[in-house]
Every structure is written in C-alpha cells, then in structure tokens.
C-alpha cells in the first residue's frame, strides 16, 4: 500500500468518528460492498472520504444518510464502481495471486510459530518444519474459503440481516475452522522436511512478495 493510500485510510478513520451510529452502520455496508469491487484501494478510500464529507455535512443540516445518499445504496455503489476504469483480466489475476500469497504467509507464520512452540515445549525434536499432505490440503481449503467467504460478505452487504442466516453463517464458519485445523492431524504423510529457520525465511520472502505486489496494486 502506498503512502497516499495509508494517509487517506488514517484520515478517514479519524473523520468517521464524527458520524453517528445509524449513519455509520450504513456507511460500513457501503464500504464493504466497495471492498468487493474492482476499485483500487486508493479509489475506495477516496470515495469513502467523499462519502464521509457528504454524511457529516448532511448531519449538520439534520439530514440522515438516506436523504444524503439516496435510498438504493446498491445501485448508487454500482454507479460509483462503474464511473472508475474497470480492472483488466491480467490485473484481476495479479490481485488474486497477491491475495493468495497474503493468505500463504499468514498460514506460514502460524505453522512456523506453532511448530516452534511444540518442538520447544513438548517434543524436544530437532527444529524442523514438516510439510505434510494435511497442511497442504488445509492451506488450499483456507485460501478457497477466505476468497469465497470475503466475496460473499461483500456482495451481501445490503442484504437484510436475518437471524437464521446469521446462525447458518456462524455454524458454517466454525465447521470450516474445525476441518481446516484438524486436517494436518489426520493426513500426517510428510512430503518435505526443511529446517525451521529455512521455513521462516520462505515465509518472510512470501511476505515481501505480497507487500511488493500490494504496492503495485495501490
């Protein structure tokens, strides 16, 4: 993420505090919907800044967000998204790869740190990282689940909130977390063994790649 985007995010967070709870809830949904769009992070924050200005000024006049933004939030969001240049196919692929690398380094840190703790406190074996079939399946499932669930959340930003739907969502998330967490304990066949510090270096390289890709995307 470049400096301009980081500055905008910080400024938006500060200024959002002036928005009242009711308006803020709707603004959050709008931003969530925009997050799932093709807009670059900088453009998302630029739009967010403009909307915050509009809402705060509306509040001062005594107008709620519905009067300021209009009643059909989704339609207005789509209009906003369409007023920016759309991402090309290669840009979309680039973004997807960046997201996958992000998830990989997060899983990597968790695996390396947990292996380090287990070796240090329990097994007292050499500091090695075992890449098992279970860890690979679990990693692939995490990537798929994260991509699909985030996309679903963004697209459902304006859908009416139902308790039954929330319970189903909650159950689904925990079932997925359970499956992902336990797969490495079921499929223990080792594919590759490397020193733990090499695994840590690989995780750091993945982190650096993701950061560079993110800068390009911004």
């Amino acid at each position, binding site marked *: 993420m470049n400096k301009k985007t980081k500055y905008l995010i910080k400024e938006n967070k500060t*200024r959002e505090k002036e928005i009242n709870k009711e308006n803020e809830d709707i603004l959050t949904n709008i931003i969530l919907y925009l997050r799932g769009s093709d807009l670059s992070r900088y453009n998302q924050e630029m*739009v967010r800044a*403009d*909307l*915050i*200005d*509009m809402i*705060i*000024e*509306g509040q*001062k006049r005594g107008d709620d967000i519905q*009067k*300021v*933004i*209009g009643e059909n939030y989704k339609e*207005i969001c789509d*209009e*906003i998204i*369409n*007023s*920016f*240049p759309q991402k090309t196919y290669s840009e979309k692929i680039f973004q997807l790869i960046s997201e996958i690398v992000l998830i990989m380094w997060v899983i990597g840190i968790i695996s390396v740190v947990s292996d380090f703790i287990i070796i240090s406190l329990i097994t007292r074996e050499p500091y090695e990282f075992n890449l098992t079939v279970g860890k690979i399946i679990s990693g692939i499932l995490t990537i798929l689940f994260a991509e699909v669930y985030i996309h679903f959340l963004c697209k459902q930003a304006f859908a009416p909130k139902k308790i039954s739907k929330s319970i189903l969502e909650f159950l689904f998330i925990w079932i997925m977390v359970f499956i992902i967490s336990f797969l490495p304990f079921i499929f223990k066949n080792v594919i590759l063994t490397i020193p733990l510090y090499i695994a840590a270096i690989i995780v750091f390289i993945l982190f650096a790649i993701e950061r560079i890709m993110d800068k390009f995307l911004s």
Partner: protein
Amino acid sequence: MITSQMLKGMLEGCILQVISMEETYGYEISRKLNLYGFGEISEGTIYPLLLRLQKNGLISSVMKASENGPNRKYFNLTAKGEIELNSFKDNCKELFYAINQLFENDKGGQIL
C-alpha cells in the same frame, strides 16, 4: 414527475449546465436541480456522475473550507466541458424539437 429512467443520460448535461453558472459543490447542485423542477435528486445520485465528468476531464475540482462543516469539493467547468455542454444543448434542442413534432402529430398535425 420526471422519472429516474427519463433523467438517465440527461442528468450529466444538466449538471454541466449548473456548474457552468458558477463554481459549486455536490449538495448545492442537487438543491439547484430541485429548484429547477427536477424533483428530489440526492447528492449520492449526483456523486457518481461528478466522478465520471471529472474522469473525462469535463469538470475540475478544488477543496475549500466550508463555514461550519468539513471541507467541500467545489467543481468548475473545463474548456472540454464547455464544448461538451454546447454539444449537449444542441442535442437537447434537436430532441425537444423531435418530441414536440411527435406530440403535435398526435393532435392531428403533419410531419414536416
């Protein structure tokens, strides 16, 4: 009542006309359109159009402090915007002429 479907395609040109009158900002544009009889057009409806007009270089913007609120984005017409506005006005004249002709014909008039 002017429906949003009827307004589509016309609103960008009308916004250009409002901006051509004087430097203005989103809420003021929506208020002026309302005063001219366009009905309630929210700032949120205008916002994507302003983004598009700016992206196409037809308007420019500048942030200015407001009296008792956050900074406002004020819009001005660019030279390209003026050309576009004149073209929009000519097209509107043609369209209104055609519609008038059609309505006259409905009353039993002749197509010229």
